């Protein structure tokens, strides 16, 4: 049952559950809980059998080749450490799911929460099961992302949004550093495979790139595991729902950094750089976190800072670089996850049942919730390191390691003292947590009357607390073998002998532990009233990481703005000028270096008729540019003329496919632009002071003319140089030869589009859909310039005449004028429709195809709009461009996926001749379905743009109120029907 492919299933299950949960209705809390719970339990059950090979010291690997030449393969591996962490993620995940079901309020969209939570679970499993470092970094960033979504779950809450953003920026930046660090490691070792990397510790440590790689990887680990000075994001992340705090921000995600440091411990540890950086960061975090935790009044704030402090403790242990310290680090990671998750859940219950988390208002809750109180007390005792609990054993190991630490006499003396101090702080805040909340007189000003939570909400805490007790009392029999396999997978031959027992006789660590317990207790009872009066931790309160972060962020944004102001512009003309100049320069550079020469091909004699056509086209193009400023309509007409000349050229040069497409596209473009002209403000004629444009304007215009001529001439020269050279033997010959045998079509262009290069086409139609949606959403909120809000002069006059004449309604004049043309245009609809279908069907063998057919079809729709007006058309014809776009995209993808079902690669087409009754032998291929998808999408996209423009005209823009001329005009959208 330990087929390595099961690993893939374990990893895929949470993501699958996440999707499933996301599709549930927002009130389905129990269903979503069931999905999440069963995913966690099932994945746990699947992972348990892997313990057998892992305990034997084997590594179970699953490799799926992806980009082997780049060293990027999907590698999943499980060894002792990965198994331990994966079980932690899954088991605590299952308990958190159970807890969440009862924690969340009825009005919260719970399926969304479970969807994020499961996706996070999958990402976290991805980190611990990754056998490839790049893959690990990828999952690493995914956990940051889902942590962001989970912290911001109550996005109505400002603190949640800010906390989520801060956590994302800090941890994702760290993730980027990690990625660079990983790439450096890959450069040193020559492989990203974890097993290869772990085997080449010596190479890495002796490499000059060791230090940069180490620092970058540690930046990733420190930001993720909230190490000083990046710890500030974790308390802000407490705005998340409590299950998230219990799961992500105490048990799992913040342990990802620890996991990474443990994982890479064999290759990084042992150098001075590692020792100093990691131990210092760990020690600072331990003390700063514990000190700040003492002064918190919020239960979750206290737990957050205590989490930071414990993470610092683990980091310090890893920094000490001795194998025994590494054992203690792994052991404490597990212990901390159990007691801290249960404490967070208890804090959540207190918050849930009493309405506040402020310790100054809480008091004497043991009377109201005795079970919860007992559970919290045991867990807090484990956190404080009271004997008979798991926290005691790992803390004793920590103190022993602090005593044995290498280094000079100063470190040798200071470390045990500081470690004991940290332990004493930990006793102090644990005691404060318990005593302040559960003991003392009954509370007086609580929002709710506290009572015990539902039994199932307490169950997860009970399980975790029992684990604390069992591990604390009989460690060797319970956690011992699992820990041993984890330790051996990290340390290998260096694995030390250690004993997990509560009683090692009277020893120095025990003495320090007792001192810490006694000092902490005494200090609490001495200072507890003073603590309640203080607003923040002394000394370090001035160091406000969160505020500094905000300030740095604001500074970056400000600088970015000023850079944008310096180098950017919103005006289109400079942008276009820059673009064209750059393109010219890029085109010119190679010619400056290598020189310009035309090819040797003989020039075909110029046909006079062709020359005349081109002269006409050129005049049209120049005229369009010349008229563009003052007579847009004339300019548009001239542009269409130039387009027609291009179309005739294609026919002349035997490219009917291009000619057809060009003609259709030209038609649609011209009509859409014509419709847009209505919304452009009228241009005023130029009035210069002395009837003469100033020199600066003349200069700018001449410069622009020069740029335009240079660009046009350059493109022409480039084309001429290309065309006078013989065509190199490109892939086009292959297409010409294989279009019929392989694609089953005689129209090579179409076969390339829907078969050989279908994937490109799929991408292109997706882009087209996005463009259409963008135009639609831009125009939906379009505010026309104030001078073009009013209907055009002619329309106003007609309407006025209609209004004053008896027996006529507004719009009658227009209707009369358009009567005959309208009837002809309406009757043409079926004709153009048939023509479009004809183009579509014959596309595979003759000029046509989905794109041309789609454009033709949209011309039919456009004609209807122009003839009848928006309201008339939409009352008769159901125009649903969005559905067409969706259907087209779906059809294209489904056709492509269909090939997979028959064992062929994506988008392989199938072709044969069908014998149809009446019609006879007909070519038929799956490419037709793909082309149908293209057709639908093109129709939808064009119709969507048309509808967006058309609806502008039937809106009733509110006239600008003269009293407040600076207010932009507001459009009432009552016309949207």
């Amino acid at each position: 049952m330990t087929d390595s492919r099961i690993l893939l299933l374990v990893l895929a299950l949470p993501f699958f559950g996440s999707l499933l949960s996301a599709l549930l209705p927002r009130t389905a809390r129990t269903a979503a809980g069931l999905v999440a719970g069963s995913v966690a339990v099932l994945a746990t059950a699947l992972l348990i059998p892997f313990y057998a090979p892992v305990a034997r010291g084997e590594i179970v690997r699953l490799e799926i080749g992806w980009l082997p030449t780049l060293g990027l393969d999907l590698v999943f591996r499980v060894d002792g450490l990965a198994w331990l962490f994966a079980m932690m993620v899954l088991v605590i995940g299952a308990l958190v799911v159970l807890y969440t079901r009862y924690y969340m309020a009825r009005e919260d969209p719970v399926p969304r929460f479970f969807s994020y939570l499961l996706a996070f679970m999958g990402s976290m499993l991805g980190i611990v099961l990754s056998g490839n470092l790049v893959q690990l970094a990828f999952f690493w960033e995914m956990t940051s992302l889902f942590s962001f979504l989970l912290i911001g779950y109550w996005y109505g809450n400002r603190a949640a949004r800010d906390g989520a953003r801060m956590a994302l920026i800090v941890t994702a930046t760290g993730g980027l550093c990690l990625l660079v660090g990983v790439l450096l490691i890959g450069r040193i070792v020559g492989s990203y495979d974890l097993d290869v990397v772990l085997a080449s510790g010596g190479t890495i440590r002796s490499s000059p790139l060791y230090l940069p790689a180490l620092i970058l990887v540690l930046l990733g680990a420190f930001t993720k595991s909230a190490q000083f000075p990046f710890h500030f994001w974790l308390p802000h992340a407490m705005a998340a729902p409590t299950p998230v705090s219990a799961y992500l921000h105490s048990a799992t995600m913040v342990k990802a950094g620890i996991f990474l440091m443990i994982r890479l411990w064999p290759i990084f540890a042992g150098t001075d750089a590692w020792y100093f950086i990691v131990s210092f960061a760990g020690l600072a975090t331990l003390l700063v976190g514990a000190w700040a935790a003492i002064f918190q009044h919020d239960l979750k704030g206290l737990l957050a800072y205590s989490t930071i402090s414990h993470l610092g403790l683990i980091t310090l242990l890893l920094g000490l670089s001795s194998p025994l310290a590494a054992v203690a680090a792994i052991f404490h990671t597990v212990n901390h996850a159990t007691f801290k998750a249960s404490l967070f859940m208890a804090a959540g219950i207190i918050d849930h049942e009493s309405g506040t988390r402020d310790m100054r208002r809480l008091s004497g809750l043991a009377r109201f919730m005795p079970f919860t109180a007992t559970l919290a007390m045991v867990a807090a005792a484990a956190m404080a390191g009271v004997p008979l609990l798991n926290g005691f054993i790992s803390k004793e190991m920590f103190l022993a390691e602090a005593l044995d630490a290498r280094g000079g006499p100063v470190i040798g003396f200071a470390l045990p003292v500081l470690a004991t101090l940290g332990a004493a702080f930990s006793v102090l805040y644990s005691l404060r947590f318990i005593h302040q909340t559960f003991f003392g007189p009954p509370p007086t000003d609580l929002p709710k009357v506290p009572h015990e939570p539902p039994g199932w909400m307490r169950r997860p805490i009970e399980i975790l607390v029992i684990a604390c007790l069992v591990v604390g009392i009989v460690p060797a029999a319970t956690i011992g073998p699992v820990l041993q396999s984890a330790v051996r997978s990290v340390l290998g031959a260096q694995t030390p002998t250690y004993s997990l027992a509560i009683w090692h006789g009277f020893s120095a660590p025990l003495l320090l532990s007792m001192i810490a317990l006694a000092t902490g207790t005494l200090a609490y009872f001495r200072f507890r009233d003073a603590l309640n009066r203080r607003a923040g931790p002394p000394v370090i309160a001035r160091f406000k990481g969160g505020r500094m972060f905000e300030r740095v962020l604001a500074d970056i944004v400000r600088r970015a703005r000023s850079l944008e102001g310096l180098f950017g512009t919103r005006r289109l003309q400079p942008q276009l000028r820059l673009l064209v100049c750059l393109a010219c320069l890029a085109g010119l550079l190679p010619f400056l270096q290598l020189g310009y020469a035309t090819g040797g091909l003989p020039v075909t004699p110029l046909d006079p008729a062709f020359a005349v056509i081109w002269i006409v086209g050129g005049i049209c193009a120049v005229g369009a540019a010349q008229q563009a400023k003052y007579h847009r309509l004339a300019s548009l007409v001239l542009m269409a003329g130039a387009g027609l000349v291009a179309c005739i050229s294609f026919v002349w040069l035997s490219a009917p496919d291009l000619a057809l497409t060009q003609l259709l596209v030209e038609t649609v473009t011209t009509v859409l632009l014509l419709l847009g002209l209505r919304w452009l403000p009228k241009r005023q004629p130029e009035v210069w002071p002395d009837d003469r444009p100033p020199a600066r304007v003349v200069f700018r215009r001449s410069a622009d003319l020069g740029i335009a001529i240079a660009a046009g001439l350059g493109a022409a020269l480039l084309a001429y140089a290309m065309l006078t050279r013989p065509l190199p033997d490109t892939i086009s010959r292959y297409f010409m030869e294989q279009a019929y045998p392989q694609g089953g079509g005689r129209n090579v262009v179409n076969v390339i589009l829907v078969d050989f290069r279908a994937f490109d086409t799929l991408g292109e139609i997706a882009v087209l859909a996005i463009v259409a949606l963008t135009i639609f959403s831009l125009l939906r909120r379009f505010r026309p310039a104030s001078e073009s809000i009013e209907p055009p002069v002619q329309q106003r006059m007609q309407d006025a005449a209609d209004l004053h004449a008896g027996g006529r309604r507004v719009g009658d004049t227009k209707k009369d004028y358009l009567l005959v043309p309208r009837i002809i245009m309406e009757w043409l609809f079926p004709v153009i429709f048939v023509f479009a279908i004809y183009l579509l069907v014959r596309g595979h063998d003759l000029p046509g195809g989905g794109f041309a057919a789609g454009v033709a079809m949209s011309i039919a729709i456009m004609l209807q709009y122009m003839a009848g007006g928006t309201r008339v058309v939409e009352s008769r014809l159901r125009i649903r461009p969005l559905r067409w776009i969706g259907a087209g995209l779906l059809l294209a993808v489904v056709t492509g996926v269909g090939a997979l079902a028959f064992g062929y690669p994506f988008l392989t087409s199938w072709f044969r001749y069908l014998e149809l009754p009446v019609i006879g032998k007909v070519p038929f291929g799956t490419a037709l379905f793909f082309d149908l998808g293209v057709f639908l999408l093109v129709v939808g996209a064009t119709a969507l743009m048309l509808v967006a423009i058309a609806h502008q005209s039937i809106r009733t823009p509110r006239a600008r109120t003269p009293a407040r001329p600076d207010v932009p005009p507001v459009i009432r959208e009552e016309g949207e029907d």
Partner: protein
Amino acid sequence: MTQAPDLPLWAAILAAIFVLIGAGATFIGSMGLLRLKTFYERVHSPTMGTTLGTVCILLASACVSSVVHARFSVHEALIFLFVSLTTPVTLMLLARAALYRDRVAGDESVPVEDDRSN
């Protein structure tokens, strides 16, 4: 450009005559567009090309296609149908717009609106 295919002489002559007549008619229409003075006069001249010109060129095309493919070619009839259906739409819209503008501008030379609206 593909050169003239193997046509029998009579067909070539027939097609050539049709093409020349069509082109001539279209040319006269274009000249009219250039030379005539008022809009209402001008609006008529391009119809030379869209009616007689188109018909003659289509006849030439039908003649050549029928002989080359050895079957009666009717595609051109469709082209004729659609050209003669759609061209009036443009002309009608243009004439209507011009008439409206002239009336609004108070031009005496154009016919006044009929009684229906008064």
